[in-house]
C-alpha cells in the first residue's frame, strides 16, 4: 500500500465506533469541567461586585445631577448650537431660565404634572407652635400647621372649599401640602393664563412668629416657586401678615 491508500484500512471500522465519534461533542474531562466552573464563578463574582457599584455611581452622579447652564454650554460645545429666545424655541418664543419652554403651544412640560415633593425644610418648626396660613388665589385656603405637619384645613371661599373636597392634606408636611395645593390649582386651570403670578401666604399670627419660623415659611414658599418654575410656570410667592 502507498500514499492515501492507508486510509482505506480504516474504512471498515466498527459501526459503533463511527457512531460514537459522530455523536461526541465537547468532552467532559474533569480538568475542563473544573476550568469552566472556575471561569463561570469568576464572571459571576465580577457581576455580583459590579452591580452594587453601578447602582452606587448612578445614585451619586445621575440622580443628583442638577440641570444647569453649564450643561447647556457643554451641549453647545459638543456641536449642538444654542438657540436664542424667540428663534425657534417655541411658537410663541417663550422660555424660562432653566431651559424649559412655557406657553400654550409649548412642547413640554404638561401643566397638569405634579411637581416633585421636596423634603421638609432643614430647620424644624417649634413643637407647640401652630401657624395658620392662607393661600390666596381664586381658591383661597387656610392651613393650620403644627410641628411642621398640616393638622387642619379650611376653605376660605367657595373655590377653596371645592378644592379641598378633593384633597387630603391633613398629615402631610407643610411643603408637601403646598405642592399638592399648587398642583391641584394648576389642574383646575387657575394659573394657566398667567405667566407671572403672585400668591400670598398669609399668616394670621405673623407678628408672633419667631425669625426662624418666618424663615421656614419663606423656605416653603421658595420651594414651591422652584417646583412651579421647573414645570414651566413663573410664580412669585409673598409671605405677608394678615391684614
Amino acid at each position, binding site marked *: *500500500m*502507498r*500514499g*492515501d*491508500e*492507508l*486510509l*482505506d*484500512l*480504516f*474504512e*471498515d*471500522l*466498527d*459501526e*459503533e*465506533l*463511527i*457512531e*460514537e*465519534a*459522530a455523536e*461526541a*461533542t*465537547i*468532552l467532559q*474531562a474533569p480538568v*475542563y469541567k473544573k476550568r469552566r466552573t472556575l471561569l463561570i464563578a469568576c464572571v459571576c463574582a465580577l457581576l455580583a461586585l459590579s452591580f452594587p457599584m453601578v447602582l452606587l455611581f448612578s445614585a451619586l452622579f445621575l440622580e443628583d445631577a442638577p440641570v444647569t447652564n453649564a450643561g447647556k454650554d457643554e451641549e453647545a460645545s459638543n456641536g449642538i448650537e444654542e438657540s436664542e429666545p424667540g428663534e425657534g424655541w417655541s411658537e410663541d418664543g417663550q422660555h424660562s431660565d432653566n431651559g424649559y419652554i412655557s406657553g400654550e403651544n409649548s412642547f413640554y412640560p404638561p401643566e397638569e404634572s405634579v411637581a416633585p415633593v421636596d423634603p421638609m425644610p432643614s430647620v424644624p418648626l417649634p413643637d407647640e407652635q401652630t401657624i395658620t396660613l392662607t393661600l390666596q388665589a381664586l381658591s383661597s385656603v387656610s392651613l393650620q400647621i403644627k410641628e411642621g405637619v398640616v393638622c387642619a384645613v379650611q376653605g376660605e371661599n367657595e373655590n377653596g372649599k371645592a378644592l379641598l373636597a378633593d384633597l387630603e392634606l391633613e398629615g402631610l408636611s407643610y411643603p408637601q401640602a403646598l405642592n399638592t395645593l399648587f398642583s391641584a390649582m394648576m389642574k383646575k386651570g387657575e394659573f394657566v393664563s398667567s405667566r407671572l403670578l403672585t400668591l400670598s401666604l398669609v399668616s394670621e399670627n405673623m407678628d408672633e412668629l419667631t425669625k426662624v419660623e418666618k424663615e421656614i415659611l419663606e423656605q416653603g414658599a421658595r420651594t414651591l416657586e422652584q417646583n412651579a418654575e421647573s414645570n414651566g410656570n413663573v410664580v412669585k410667592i409673598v409671605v405677608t401678615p394678615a391684614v
Partner: protein
Amino acid sequence: MDDSKIIDLYFMRDEQAITLTAKKYGQKLNSISFGILGDRMMAEECENDTYLKAWNAIPPAEPRAHFFAFLAKITRRLSISRIRDGSRQKRSAVLVELSSELELCLPCEGTVEQTVDQKLLMQSISVFIKKLPSEQRIIFVRRYWYLESIDQIAKKLGIGESKVKSILSGGRKKLKEHLEKEGFAV
C-alpha cells in the same frame, strides 16, 4: 422515524425511504462529505449518490442496527473516490498528509501476503481502536475515519490542538506496538 421502519420502506421499494433518510441523516452525511472534499456542491452530489447506493444496496443489505454508520461509510468511500479521480488536487494533499502520519505505524510495503491479509489488518485496527480510552478513541476515529483536521477536532471537542496532537501521536505509537504483537511487519 425509527431506522428499522425506514429500512422496511427500502425493502418495500418505497421511495419515501430516501426522503426520510435525507431528512434524518442528510445533514450529517453532507457534513462528512464536505469535511473530506471541502466543496459544498460536490458534497451535495456525494450525499445524493449515497442515497442511490443505499437504495441499490438495501436489500440484500439490512443495516438495522447501525443505519447511520452504513450510510456514512458509503459517503466516505464516495468522497475519497472523488478526490482520487483527480478533480480535487488540494484535497488529495490532505489525504496524503493523513496517510504519511500512518506510515510509521502501519505496514506499508505491499507484499502479496500482506495484501491478502488486508482484511485481517483492518479487523486488527478496529479491535485496537475499541480498546483505546474513550477520549483517545473518539479523536482517533475523527482523524482517520472522518478525516478531520486537528484544528476541527480541537474545536468540536473543546480541547487544545496540542492535546489532540499528543493523543494522536500516542495512539499511533500504541497501534504500531499492537500490530507488531499481532504479527504484522511494520
